[in-house]
């Protein structure tokens, strides 16, 4: 769990999101819909983004779980968070942790996703505030920054 080994006893039917929030106090992961539609509960399981309301806690035994609490360097923001901050890719912020976790997955596997690809990727996320524009711009910003970094160093 976020780089540490965590042991906890859970009933077989307990959802990962419930364990995260209620047992481990990791409340950055949100519950928005109960049916796996909204994406506010997205975390990474072995690096892949998953909806933690659709995963049983017992399925994560001996796997790596990363939540929003585990992504930012101490006191700072990771590249996705930083880019979303620049683009004001939040408003109410309720879907934001899920968006960050979802985009981290995309941007780790694809360095320069097209706008279309980013929008398609975000299909698992519902946001009612931003209309997705600032979120998509945020994702594009990460891609642009990651291209710019080696160029600047060369």
């Amino acid at each position, binding site marked *: 769990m976020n780089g540490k080994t965590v042991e906890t006893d859970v009933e077989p039917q307990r959802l990962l999101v419930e364990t995260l929030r209620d047992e481990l106090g990791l409340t950055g992961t949100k519950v928005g819909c109960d*049916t796996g539609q909204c994406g506010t509960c997205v975390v990474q399981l072995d690096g892949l983004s998953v909806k933690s309301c659709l995963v049983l806690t017992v399925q994560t035994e001996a796997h790596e779980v990363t939540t929003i609490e585990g992504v930012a360097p101490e006191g700072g923001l990771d590249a996705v*968070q930083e880019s979303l901050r620049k683009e004001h890719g*939040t408003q109410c*912020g309720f879907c934001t942790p899920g968006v*960050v976790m979802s985009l981290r997955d995309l941007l780790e596997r694809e360095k320069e996703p097209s706008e279309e690809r980013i929008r*398609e990727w975000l299909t698992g996320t519902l946001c*009612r505030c*931003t209309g*997705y524009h600032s979120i*998509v711009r945020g994702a594009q910003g990460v891609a642009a920054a990651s291209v710019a970094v080696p160029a600047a160093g060369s």
Partner: protein
Amino acid sequence: MSAGRRVLGVASDCREDPQLLRGEATFIADVELPRMTHMAILGSEHAHALIKGIDTSAAEAMPGVLKVVTAADFANVMPLPCIWIPGGVESHFPPHPYGLPGSRPLLSGDRVRHVGDQIAAVVAETAWQAHAALKAIRVDYELLPVVTRADDAIAEGAPQLHEAVPGNLNAYWTCGNKEATERALADAEVKVELDLVNQRTINSPMEPRGAVGHYVAATDDYTLYASTQGPHNHRFLLAALVLGIPFNKLRVIAPTVGGSFGTKGYLYPDMALVLLLSKMLGRPVKWVDTRTGLMRSTVQGRDHRQHVTLAGTRDGRITGLHCTSYANLGAYPSTIGPGVATALMGRSISGMYQIPAAFCEVYVAFTNTVPLGAQRGSGRAEATFLMERLVDRYATEIGMDPAEVRRKNLVPNDAFPYENGLGWTYDSGSYRENFDKALELAGYTDMDERKAEARGRGKRLGVGIACYVAICGVGPSTRMSQEGMLGGTWESSNIRVHPTGEVSATVGSASTGQSHYTVYAQVVADELGIDPAQVQVMEADTLRAPYGQGTYGSRSFSMAGPSLALTARKVKEKMRRAAAALFQVDVDKVVYGEDGVIFVQGERETQSKTFADLAMALWYGWNLPPEIEPTIDETTFFDPPDFNYPFGTHVAVVEVDELTGQTEVVSYTAVDDAGFVGNPTIVKGQIEGSIVHGFGQALMEQAVYDEQGNLVTADFRNYALPRAADVPFFQLDRTETPTPHNPLGAKGAGEIATVPPAAAVVNAVVNALADLGVQHLDMPLTPEKVWRQLNPEGVAP
């Protein structure tokens, strides 16, 4: 406008964002108190039924269950009030103290009137246990006939919902000039009519509602944590009007609120239940709604069935406008539901146009559906839809370009303040400039080529325009009282200057995602000439901010913002007076510089004090004349002379797929005018989100009730919201026409761009299908609905 604006009116990062991005903000579900218990609420599975009995014994025996309550436990608790009685409409409900009508009990005892109507509540050690116990409550129902449409509800022989309301008619409300309008229609060269359904939609903030009640017996104090956009209002409604406890015994705190769009300003039974149950149990009680629970109990929006008529000349001059609307109020009048269904809609129907004769009548009816309330752009979106559909229909009828018809009828700049004949007096506007800018940006004149090009790809391209005026800045208390609002609608602010030169500002609003902490700090810093980082902003806690009304109707920046500016000016005045005493000069000689340095005129180099110097001097209180009190702590209650009226023009370009009927919005241009804009970053985000909300209504969103009154669309598997792949980037621009009604010149912004997109998109789709003879389609424009227009014979069975 002050000349020294440096940090206000410019884009800046939002101070709220890092916390949100790190998942560290506390939303209602994250609130934890020692010895917390958990509440779940039983909602009715039937839309209309008598309750012959409720057996809670099995639930009470379930593991972890601490308490099960029904209506009988709250016989002495006053019903939830409705505080907007439009036009002095007669109230059929029992009176409250302070002259307000009651509308619904905390829990329904003998009868349920909509699916989700609250019947019982369980408190248990865990939320799981509470929800499990709900299933053990046995309710003996006797089913009653159901009605879900407003026009059906007021027809003869309809099922009756409330004994006190014969015919289910809550109100017959009108505005405008009936005789003149009928004459205009009778004399018209051209008359066009439309029957419109503005479907019911579900607002769907991503955070479901929640509440935590904490009663402390030792001091007899109640604290409510709630996902509310109006903590002060909820304190007023709960303390004075429901619980009947002294005002100073209730504190209401809104933690971070995950979106609202209107729904979280209403008083709901759960808010009172957690407080009363906390007192009964001596422990804090927490309740967090589920998505389905939200969809079946939180206020829903829109829902009018309308017959509208426009009269005009053959050369494109609109001469009359008539609207008959049947508004669906749902099962009970929500806190301000009746006002949403009437004044907000009816007085807005003429939009940007100068129409000599207009009249609107609204039949407001009770039905077996979830109570109606506000939804982003409430009333104004419904009004704009009917007007903008009618204009297109009229343009087709007289064979004129819809843009040309609009241009001919826009209210000219020299007509302001402009009385629209329906009850609104528009404050200021430059409609023509705004309109032309939008059309130019959209490339409106190139559409014929684009249509031909699209046709070659199997797509039908359509273009739709929508213009709007949106009443915002709900604030003039006297004006609102004339509308039937039973409560003040001013806004307050306080600024306290600390001895070391930092500032705390408190306001009565409550952000639900509008970055208030950022923009209010900009207002204060700008006025005082200090760094925004020196300004702490506090809101959303009734103990911290003395009084206030909350965030609704796009009022925060144009109500609390000006209030803060006026308070900051009081701060500056006191600093000047103190400086005059310290410099021993006349106060007229003291200048408060734009950089926050206070100096003697012409002697800045030798006779000056910094903001922090004076803050400390006032804290010590030495060497001040007796008429100057120590420290600076200033307050303003701002009640503007009238509303403000933002406006704008949106242009949608859609492509309809010939094979599937799928509509894709391929470009969208919006030019909005919200007067002075405090932080363009924030407003841009709100505009973008608002437009997509409008797309939702146009293309996919609909609360569907079946004939038994079941809400078929009670979760996100059945209720469609726009997703990222459904929208393109937009072309945005703005014009800036300040309002004279507040010292910032700011107009409402948060929801205004939700007002026109439904009309723009539907106009575009109808335009795309015009050669098939399509004159109107009811929303949502699902692929199936559009496909049936393309394939009128359907598919052989």
